[in-house]
């Protein structure tokens, strides 16, 4: 009987397309918005992927990677003295302005690395050599900076070009690849000492202490020990990412806004699909009544309706996710808008589609189970 149910479903082309379209649209909206939201969240934690370290030690009140409260220079040695720490290096991280060739000022994310170890170095160098950062006024910029700080030039910045940071020359010795940050500012890497020179002078300038534990040490245990012994806050890289996204969830309207759109996708899916499926059932009520009179049990009819609903769900989900994948392929090269999709997004959308189909099927099943087969004898 199952092939009969599928044929009944698909032969009504208009309704079938409407049903699949509704589920596909809902899947697209839910997956795509989820992808953009997760992409946006991932941007908020891109420091942890662009400046890599196992442990990030910050001032005790810091709750997100995107705020810094300065530490004392002596804190570096305090952290180094904690058992299990292999090495700990200072990091300068601040947003300041860079001035392009024509005088236009652009905000930049200035990163100052320890000159000896260059710990926290960018993950991928595209041009030049990172070691040349030790030269006077040398900076390594990311690809975004090449097109942000090139005003006055008719081409992107390249190795050998210069711009200004706080009235001091910054000469490009390398170009690196980074993940875009939530703030949208380009990364400019230099050494810690030069970063202090580029920045307006403050009493305390140290932003973060990057730590690598000794081989064999458990990162979480070392971080906990640093906190206990120094009174500073020590996050693992994953912990700081989590704290940052938790902060976004708790303190901004971004999740609510995306969740609203995702919920709308779900509601649209339910309304379109459930209503269309219910009207499909109503149109076939007489035939379903005839089947019931001929010996089809309520259980069998329920299974047929579930099969129809889940077939629509599967096809619609496939289409919706496929369209989302195409969207991702189109936007990812431009890094705009942010987009991140993984199996969890797909599972969540799948569960939502399953719910939509279940609601649609249950409405039909409720109607059919109450259907009096004697309906077929009434003219």
């Amino acid at each position, binding site marked *: 009987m199952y092939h009969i149910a599928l044929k009944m479903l698909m032969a009504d082309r208009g309704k079938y397309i409407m049903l699949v379209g509704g589920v596909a649209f809902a899947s697209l909206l839910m997956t795509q918005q989820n992808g953009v939201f997760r992409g946006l969240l991932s941007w908020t934690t891109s420091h942890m992927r662009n400046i890599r370290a196992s442990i990030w030690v910050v001032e005790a009140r810091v709750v997100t990677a995107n705020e810094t409260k300065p530490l004392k220079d002596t804190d570096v040695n305090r952290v180094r003295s904690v058992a299990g720490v292999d090495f700990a290096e200072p990091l300068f991280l601040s947003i300041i302005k860079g001035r392009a060739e024509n005088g236009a000022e652009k905000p930049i994310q200035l990163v100052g690395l320890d000159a000896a170890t260059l710990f926290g170095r960018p993950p991928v160098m595209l041009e030049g050599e990172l070691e040349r950062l030790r030269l006077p006024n040398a900076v390594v910029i990311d690809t975004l900076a090449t097109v942000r700080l090139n005003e006055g030039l008719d081409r992107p910045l390249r190795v050998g070009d210069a711009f200004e940071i706080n009235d001091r020359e910054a000469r490009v010795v390398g170009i690196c690849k980074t993940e875009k940050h939530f703030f949208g500012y380009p990364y400019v890497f230099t050494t810690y000492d030069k970063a202090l020179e580029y920045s307006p002078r403050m009493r305390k300038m140290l932003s973060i202490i990057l730590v690598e534990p000794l081989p064999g040490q458990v990162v979480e245990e070392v971080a906990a020990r640093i906190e206990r012994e120094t009174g500073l806050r020590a996050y693992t890289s994953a912990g700081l990412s989590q704290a940052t996204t938790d902060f976004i969830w708790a303190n901004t309207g971004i999740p609510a806004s995306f969740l609203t759109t995702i919920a709308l996708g779900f509601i649209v899916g339910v309304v379109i699909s459930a209503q269309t499926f219910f009207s499909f059932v109503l149109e076939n009520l007489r035939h379903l009544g005839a089947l019931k009179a*001929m010996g089809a*049990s309520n259980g069998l009819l329920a299974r047929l309706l579930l099969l129809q609903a889940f077939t629509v769900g599967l096809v619609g989900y496939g289409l919706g996710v496929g369209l989302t994948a195409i969207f991702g392929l189109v936007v990812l090269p431009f890094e705009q808008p942010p987009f991140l999709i993984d199996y969890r997004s797909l599972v969540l959308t799948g569960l939502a589609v399953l719910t939509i189909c279940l609601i649609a099927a249950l409405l039909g099943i409720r109607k059919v189970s109450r259907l009096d087969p004697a309906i077929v*004898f009434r003219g």
Partner: protein
Amino acid sequence: MNTPGSIVSRAPAVRVDGVSKSFGPKDNQTIALAGVRFEADHGELHLVVGPSGCGKTTLLSIIAGTLRSDAGDIRVLGQSLAAFSDRQLTEFRGAHIGFIFQQFNLIPTLSLVENVSIPLLLQGVRRREAEDRAAGMLERVGLGDRLRRKPTELSGGQQQRVAIARAIVHEPQLILCDEPTSALDSRTGHDIMGLLAGGARTGGRCVVLVTHDPRTYGFADRITRMEDGRVEEVLSGAAVHQFAAQPH
């Protein structure tokens, strides 16, 4: 033992005894059937006639087990329907009763062979075998060359032939027909009645046919005439022919 799958009796195919049925709230009830007695035998085409609202369709629904009576005993193919649960009634209908409806109730999106195979599929017959047997049955009703056509491509008479094929494809012993000729012209109606009468007499089936179409009366072995929820008279033999010959 009273089970949906076992038929043990050669007693009347249908025996309805003192059956009553009312609809509506207690203080404003419409009596559809009032103590009806009715019998139909194997190998018989038994017509139930009467004006609209006399209770014919209610009686048919009660015999089919799609409607429960308020009182009385209904035995179909030797089985007491009152003893069956709803589920057992559904199984019983599927196994032993064929239906022909006034509006044919063929599924328009399915081919003829698929429509006719449904009763077999409901009994668990595999798809290929069901379609083979359905094709054979369509051949017997003269539609062997249109197996893959859709019902909407056929005339009313041809659609009713398909409905007959569907009603008998699983070899039921009882066929219940609800106004099978009312939507057909007289010649087609005549052909359909011929098929049904042949099915009853040569197949040993009991065919109970509810109608108010006088053109069908001459085909009957017996006629039960109803009025106001009661059986007025039961005609057989020459009385059937006299009744059929009267102007209605």
